[in-house]
């Protein structure tokens, strides 16, 4: 769920802005080439995934990164190692059998 929520590059841009500074939908829309409704949609997905949360400040609703961020980090590492090992397996199986034994 977390990873799915981060699969979209625009959504990562939204998250990047929020993590730098707690922001309202309008503040985010002002900094990205997407509409306010689009920002809202991305924030909803991030919120559903538990990556961001929101709270009212005056008349605005401000979004911040959740303190579960570390779980996000862990999931990123999980995906990184999955991909790294996958890349390694493809590489190792593509090498001649005697390669690497020259230690």
């Amino acid at each position: 769920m977390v990873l799915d929520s981060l699969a979209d590059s625009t959504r990562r841009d939204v998250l990047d802005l929020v993590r730098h500074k707690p922001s309202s939908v309008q503040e985010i829309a002002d900094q990205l080439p997407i509409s306010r409704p689009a920002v809202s949609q991305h924030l909803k997905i991030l919120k559903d995934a538990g990556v961001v949360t929101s709270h009212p400040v005056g008349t605005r609703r401000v979004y911040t990164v959740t303190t579960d961020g570390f779980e996000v980090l862990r999931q990123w590492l999980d995906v990184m190692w999955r991909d790294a090992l996958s890349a390694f397996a493809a590489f190792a199986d593509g090498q001649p059998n005697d390669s690497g034994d020259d230690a």
Partner: protein
Amino acid sequence: MTTVTDVRRDVTVAGTPQRAFDLFTKRIGEWWPADHHLATSSVVAMTVEPRVGGRLYDTCEDGSESVWGQVTDWDPPAGFTFAWLITGTWQIETDVEKASRVSVTFTAEGDRTRVAVVHKDFWRLGGEGQGMADAVGGADGWGSGLQKFAEFAAK
């Protein structure tokens, strides 16, 4: 202490543990996913120094080196362990004691080798009472590495 589950991944490859160990460590620059680097400029080489205390580092196009690991255990071909010198805020950690650990083991399975990675000891990142979650969730959280890691998530 933040309790976080270890990250565990494994894969099997052709050949002996020695072959896998050597390909993994000596030729890491040839297989490591190109879009996963913390360095800001283009990475032209990756190095694992084969000894306890050895560095794991990227060499950038401009000649600079970006160290991201330090070997804490070196036992070829069974495996090796290194400190992952990247903090919860995606900055380079210079204090090995505050770095998480990555163990890579190579185990024979018939004529193939199982390569297993365990990324662990995340509690070390907590530091002196500073919650990892706070660090990640704070104003300076994540940092430039986010994009790089996210690229993987997108695949």
